[in-house]
């Protein structure tokens, strides 16, 4: 039996009960940010230059050895680890003078914390798997993250450049929607690595047993209706549908994504590109009342409250399980990965659908998945070496192999068109391993809806806003389960508390500035120490001047 008991996550659906990985403690993160700020401030005062802006060298020096570090994230999936290792070996065979050190992570939050800490000590990795939201914070220091525009377009070493030994895609071959997600402030600061979205994994057998026909496009009304219809119990307090004591018809993994997608589908406010917050509106409130109603009847629950949707789905205790397509290998009776014991798995037909929609004719779903950024270094040759490795990660060999480990899709049209990939897609269901049907269905679903995907604006604070969106749902769901009174007064307080918790009040206006709240006592002590040190230095300087003048006289 496999275990994912540490409440971890597969994708950007982060910050749930798995957050313990973020335990690396805000105290240290905050301190690192503060230290970073102070170091920048001090160096500025003394006229020191910031890290030099990167510019592409004329030629890559293959006579010199370069050691670069690559911080990679996997979905707690050994195949992905193996692919990274193989990619490094293959790349090093092309460029024997570049040595890549791999550091593995299974959680985006942990990478984020470690990067922040290492920016302060100037020990960032060279290449890093990341989310654009995180890059917005990394860019607090100047020239920390390498803008990729010049690199991408360089005729020698750019994408498809004449001097690279890597069979990388041309810039035009990166799916435009995915590439645009990596643009911050008019510049590319990352390239996409893999893309996924959320899917609704449906126990079709149960839907039909309840007398419904599964539509091609799920609507929210349909999902709520079927979920409530499934709640009927027999005289022994077992659910009629599955004969068990446990049934949660609808479970959502990432409530952040749930709220974000519902608002997008309703064309309601969430945030603007400049960071103005629109989340706390009347549409959100209506959605919360509806979600709360079904949480109250126990027809709906969340990962944070109850557990992984896949475990309930596979045990015949769930009908609609929404999770990332990057979690497809865990879904269904024959799923190659499973956390529950074999005796608990039930037989059913799994159907893959897009997330529920308000308007089936105008579907909207979130785009997510890892991107790659480069950190700037003193030696531009080292940065160029990192860029060459990054290009290798975009080659068909890596793109296709990695995408096949889960319901990801490659980010280049070049890989999509590759005969090997097309062959893979055409063989869904041939086995329950590489060709596992649910995984390939999930990938196909995203391929056919690439144009329907969207991302939320990235700004310094967008991560908090995302967390707040999920927090609203979790709070209402928990309150309804606890039979608390959820009314307008409750909602008003919830809005107010959430804005305060996530420091979003000042972003309600167009200020674009974030109120980070009062400084922790440690930070205050740190600043006080700094002030004292500066006073001592000034006193020393003055006394030296006085002493010298006295000498001269």
């Amino acid at each position: 039996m496999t275990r994912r008991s540490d409440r971890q996550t597969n994708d950007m659906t982060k910050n749930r009960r798995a957050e313990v990985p973020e335990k690396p403690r805000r105290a240290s993160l905050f301190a690192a940010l503060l230290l970073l700020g102070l170091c920048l401030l001090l160096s500025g005062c003394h006229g020191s230059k910031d890290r030099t802006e990167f510019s592409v060298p004329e030629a890559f020096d293959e006579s010199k050895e370069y050691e670069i570090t690559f911080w990679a994230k996997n979905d707690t999936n050994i195949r992905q680890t193996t692919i990274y290792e193989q990619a490094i070996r293959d790349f090093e065979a092309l460029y024997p003078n570049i040595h890549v050190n791999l550091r593995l992570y299974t959680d985006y939050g942990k990478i984020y914390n470690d990067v922040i800490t290492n920016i302060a000590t100037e020990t960032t990795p060279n290449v890093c798997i990341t989310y654009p939201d995180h890059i917005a914070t990394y860019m607090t220091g100047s020239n920390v993250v390498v803008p990729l525009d010049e690199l991408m377009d360089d005729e020698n070493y750019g994408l498809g450049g004449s001097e690279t030994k890597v069979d990388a895609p041309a810039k035009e071959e990166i799916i435009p929607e995915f590439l645009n997600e990596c643009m911050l402030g008019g510049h590319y600061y990352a390239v996409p690595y893999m893309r996924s979205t959320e899917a609704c994994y449906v126990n079709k057998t149960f839907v039909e047993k309840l007398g419904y026909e599964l539509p091609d496009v799920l609507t929210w009304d349909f999902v709520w209706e079927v979920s409530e219809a499934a709640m009927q119990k027999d005289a022994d307090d077992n659910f009629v549908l599955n004969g068990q004591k446990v049934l949660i018809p609808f479970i959502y993994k990432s409530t952040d994504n749930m709220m974000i997608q519902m608002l997008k589908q309703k064309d309601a406010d969430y945030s603007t590109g400049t960071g103005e917050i629109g989340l706390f509106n009347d549409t959100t409130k209506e959605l919360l009342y509806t979600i709360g109603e079904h949480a109250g009847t126990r027809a709906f629950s969340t990962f944070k409250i109850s557990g992984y949707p896949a475990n309930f789905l596979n045990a015949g205790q769930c009908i609609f399980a929404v999770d990332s397509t990057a979690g497809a290998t865990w879904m269904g009776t024959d799923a190659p990965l499973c956390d529950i014991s074999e005796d608990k798995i039930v037989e059913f037909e799994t159907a893959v659908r897009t997330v529920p929609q308000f308007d089936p004719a105008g579907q909207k779903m979130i785009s997510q998945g890892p991107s790659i950024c480069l950190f700037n270094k003193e030696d531009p040759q080292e940065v160029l070496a990192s860029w060459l490795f990054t290009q290798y990660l975009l080659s068909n060999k890596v793109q296709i192999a990695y995408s096949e480990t889960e319901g990801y899709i490659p980010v280049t049209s070049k890989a999509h068109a590759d005969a090997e990939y097309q062959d893979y897609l055409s063989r869904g269901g041939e086995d329950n391993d590489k060709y596992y049907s649910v995984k390939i269905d999930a990938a196909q679903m995203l391929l056919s809806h690439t144009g329907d995907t969207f991302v939320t604006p990235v700004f310094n604070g967008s991560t908090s806003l995302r967390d707040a969106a999920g927090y609203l749902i979790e709070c209402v769901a928990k309150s309804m389960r606890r039979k608390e009174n959820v009314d307008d007064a409750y909602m008003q307080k919830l809005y107010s508390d959430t804005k305060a918790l996530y420091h979003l009040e000042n972003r309600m206006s167009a200020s674009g500035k974030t109120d980070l709240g009062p400084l922790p006592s440690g930070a205050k002590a740190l600043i006080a120490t700094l002030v004292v040190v500066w006073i001592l230095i000034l006193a020393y300087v003055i006394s030296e001047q006085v002493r010298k003048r006295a000498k001269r006289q």
Partner: protein
Amino acid sequence: MKKKLAIALVFACTMMSVSVYAESAQPVEAAAEAVEAAEDTAAPAEEAAAPAAKSEGVMTYEEYMAAEMDTEVVIEAYVQAKQSWWEDEQGPKATIYAQDEDGAYFLYNAVVTQEDYEKLEVGTKFKATGYKSEWSGEIEITEAVIEIEEGSFTAEAFDATALLGTDDLIAHQNEKVSFKGMTVEPAQEGSDAAYLYSYDGSGSEGDDLYFNVSVNGAVYTFTVESYLCDSSSDVYKAVKELKVGDVIDLEGFLYWYEGANPHITSVKAAQ
């Protein structure tokens, strides 16, 4: 002059960074120390005012177990191990294993300040008011507010070896338990390795360790939870030294995740 200035600045920054780092590192060390302290003091139950006795308005263990999910519960118990403390926008969060004489409790994301978390030692009595919850089979108290009280009790590990694989094991969920005379099995089929980083080997140093042990012909998977016992802990190091075929005694806490998922805190050669 410039040199002196530079030295002063470097000194100031170094001192600040050292003090900041030392402060931030404390919780992890404290967690590891708490577990090691638990191992060192795993002596018979210390006597204090009857550990099963409850203050007014506090549930007995039986009442707690009978309470419905998602209802408020008020319990009194004694810390047996501290797993982690961290903080986010929503506030501080502590995860704790606790027991009284009648049974065990798992407190997930209890609202405990860092100052109070440091006061909690193995044996410390506290009152917790939170919500009874279930996550993937783990019965726990969430969002508990904790008040430290007078009293001390350290539980003896319950020998659960004979209950492995039986339906009776769940009655000891979250308890401090021991498993004796267990034989180390390969962590994966066809492998000589005795442990894996993460459940499938996809992790690295610092991640949870997974290892298989057998008794009476059945194989069970145990875990060293890296937040409960990090890579600097004795148990983490001990598991990395295991060889297939070793016969060992284990202690830990009977965490539950879709079935028994013991979080091991001590590994020793079988006595």
